[in-house]
């Protein structure tokens, strides 16, 4: 199968989105705000607005939070937490699971093993080493774990795979605690035709 690659330099860039792709989308979402720091809390520590950024894998766009109760988004980002549009997190059919492997080698979404967000468990687990990242207490840097691919079932039951690239603004190659955090960059491949084929 020959695929047209719609490669978006920036998902925030609204100049070239394809709102309703018919073919596989392979793109990089750059610097999606993940509840960035906006000020200081009552305890004097930096806090964000405690709000998710909602992202649509179909359009490659951030969805307004007013539409958070819709199926118009697939992944939500807040700090290092990622939610799917399903279960306790949203009205959609979204689910996820993490597989080990090389992003480009994962050709097919799994048939089974899908997990939805619930009171007890996150589809994409939080905590250092549990899901998509490791946190280094010594350097205070959060790094995506190489070889972990987030498999996503979207709100409307399509399939996608996601590889997290960075937690820091501008996706620096060797981030330090001085970099501005809570801006995620990730690669993804989205299959709009409903099949599990992610080639």
């Amino acid at each position, binding site marked *: 199968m020959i695929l047209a690659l719609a490669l978006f330099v920036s998902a925030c860039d609204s100049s070239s989105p394809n709102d309703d792709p018919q073919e596989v989308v392979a793109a990089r979402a750059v610097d999606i705000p993940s509840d960035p*720091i906006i000020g*200081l809390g009552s305890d*004097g*520590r*930096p806090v964000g607005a405690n709000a998710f950024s909602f992202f649509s894998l179909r359009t490659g766009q951030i969805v307004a939070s007013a539409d958070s109760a819709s199926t118009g988004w697939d992944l939500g980002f807040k700090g290092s937490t990622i939610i799917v549009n399903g279960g306790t997190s949203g009205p959609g059919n979204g689910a996820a699971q993490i597989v*080990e492997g*090389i*992003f*480009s080698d994962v050709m097919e979404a799994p048939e089974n093993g899908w997990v939805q967000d619930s009171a*007890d*468990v996150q589809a994409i687990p*939080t*905590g*250092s*080493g*549990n899901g998509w*990242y*490791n946190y*280094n207490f*010594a*350097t205070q*840097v959060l*790094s*995506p*774990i*190489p*070889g*972990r691919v987030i498999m996503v079932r979207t709100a409307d039951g399509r399939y996608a795979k996601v*590889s997290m*690239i960075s937690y820091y603004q501008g996706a620096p*190659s*060797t981030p330090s*605690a*001085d970099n*501005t*955090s*809570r801006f995620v960059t990730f*690669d993804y491949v989205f299959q709009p035709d409903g099949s599990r084929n992610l080639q």
Partner: protein
Amino acid sequence: MDAVVVTATRSPSVLRDVPIPTRVISAEQIQARAALRLSDLLAEEPGMVLSHFLGTGIQLQGLDPAYTLILIDGEPVIGRSGGTLDLDRFTVMDIASIEIVQGPSSSLYGSEALAGVINIRTRQPEEPFRLQIGLRRQTHNTDNWVGSIEGSQGRYAWRMNADRLQSDGYDLHPETPGLTGPGYATNTFSGRFDATINSKLSARVNARFATEDQRNVLGFQQEGFVFTFEESEQRDDWSLSPSLLWRVRSGHTWTLRNHISDYRTESLLAGGIDGREQELSTFDQGIRKLELQNDLILGTTLLLNTGAGIQREVVDAGRITGETRSNRTAWLFSQQQFFLTEAFDLTTSVRFDHHTDYGWQVSPKVGFMIKSGKSVRLRGSVGTGFKAPTFQQLYMDYTNPVAGYSVIGSADASNLLAKLIESGRIRTVITDLTAFETVTPESSVSFNVSGDTDVGPALHVHFSAFRNHVRDLVETLPIAIKTNGQQVFSYVNLSRIVTQGINAEVRWRPIQTSRISLGYQLLDTRDLDVIDGIDNGDYFGRKNGRDFRLSRSDYGGLFGRSRHTASLQVSTNIPGTSADIQIRGALKSRYGFGDQNGNLILDADQEYVDGHTLWNVTVNQPLSGFAHMQIGLVNALDHVNADQIPSLSGRQVFAALTINTP
């Protein structure tokens, strides 16, 4: 030149013929190099690498500082923080010699003597009366005052030492609040009293008291906001060691030794963005030890050393369950030194430790020595070492007030977790608690071989090789997730590592007034579980945004280990003068700093600290029979790496003057 060493066999032995290889740094070398602290001295020795984590520790045979036992006159020094016994705590002014035994010595000393033993031997009173005072001034407003007084009269001899070191500290990041190396003031008083009661009985008392004050402003930036905290720490430690020696007859002695020691820290962190936060933490550790040893020569071929002892240890700290915990160890050791033939000695030893928390530990060791002539020596040994779990690993009960995560000791993990579950603070339990066990000692099996020979009268050559298999290393693991999303950690016996290496050293005296020594170490370290993981394809790296499976050749081993280290020491008279100059260099090849790419292991180039060489220079000028002047450079080439080696200030200059009674 025939120095007598005591550490390797817990009994006196001529250095040249000691069955377990021992390295000695003599008082003359210590004096000539003008080191300030024990750490400065050890850093210049081949195969010994400083590491900086909660203090300055020493890495022996590629193993962390927690695995080297530090003794003063044969008695253990306490006060480790995160496994590191801070070697900056010890002045060198009262040291007569330092003996370093590499490889495990748990068969004689028990816990902690896994990578080796470093024994500091203090100065004995030698003169009828002698007074010495000195002052040293150094960059960063560092001042060191020293004074000692000793005397002997008939059957009594005594010596007292005082040392004060203070410094303003240094700053490698002037743009951030606080200093990189904080200012401090430390005072050490030590003394010993020797009494010869009669021809068979002698007594000795050693005492030491040290105190340190350190203050700093801690500032860090988080998301563009600057937080500042004022941090102050007070450290006090003291010890008292009376001992009694009874010479029953020639070749048969009994030694009774008592050792009482206490180490206490109090640190206060105050400030935060609104100045309201305050955290006081205290730690108080005490030991009381009593030991009896018998040394007996049987005929001409067997020397027996037998000992038994008990020790009680108490820790009082805000961060452990119940605040005060104690445990007891009792032990028995036996060593047989067989002088089988003119050319072959065999040494066997075994120690049994019984500990109230982890039960029995048996540590055997066997070593041999083949001798040829006066100088050719080939030594080898197989032995085991162990390290007991720390109080923190057993009894910790701590919740970080800022981040909200918790750490609980393994001995109380089930109880503490049950309480957390009862109070509704746990969302998910990760570990099967029925299978959760109290951590047991980490243990090792080690192989050491070494050879020594004189090549002519002016050249000595030494080589050695070692391999350590250490298992049951204690690691922190998350055992539960709290309702606030943070994790609860505890300790488990988990990983297995191997460290192995080769050392070579050449000591050359080209002319009577010059000495050159050159040492080299090749070191290889690895975590065996990581190796298994790589073989299973479980480890990935990322290069230019693409993931790939790691192969063994991508793995750089344990963090903080240089593959190549070398040391050069040159000491020579400056022609036409009475002065001498000492030049010492210590080379480290690149070493792992920390994970950068999320796989937690050392595999990518950006995870290394660049290799470097540090040079120190000292010039000694005797002024007359009763005065001595020294000038010198520390870090002479001004090597600085502010981000990765904050413990290293730039070049420092010093001048010192010592005056003593003739």
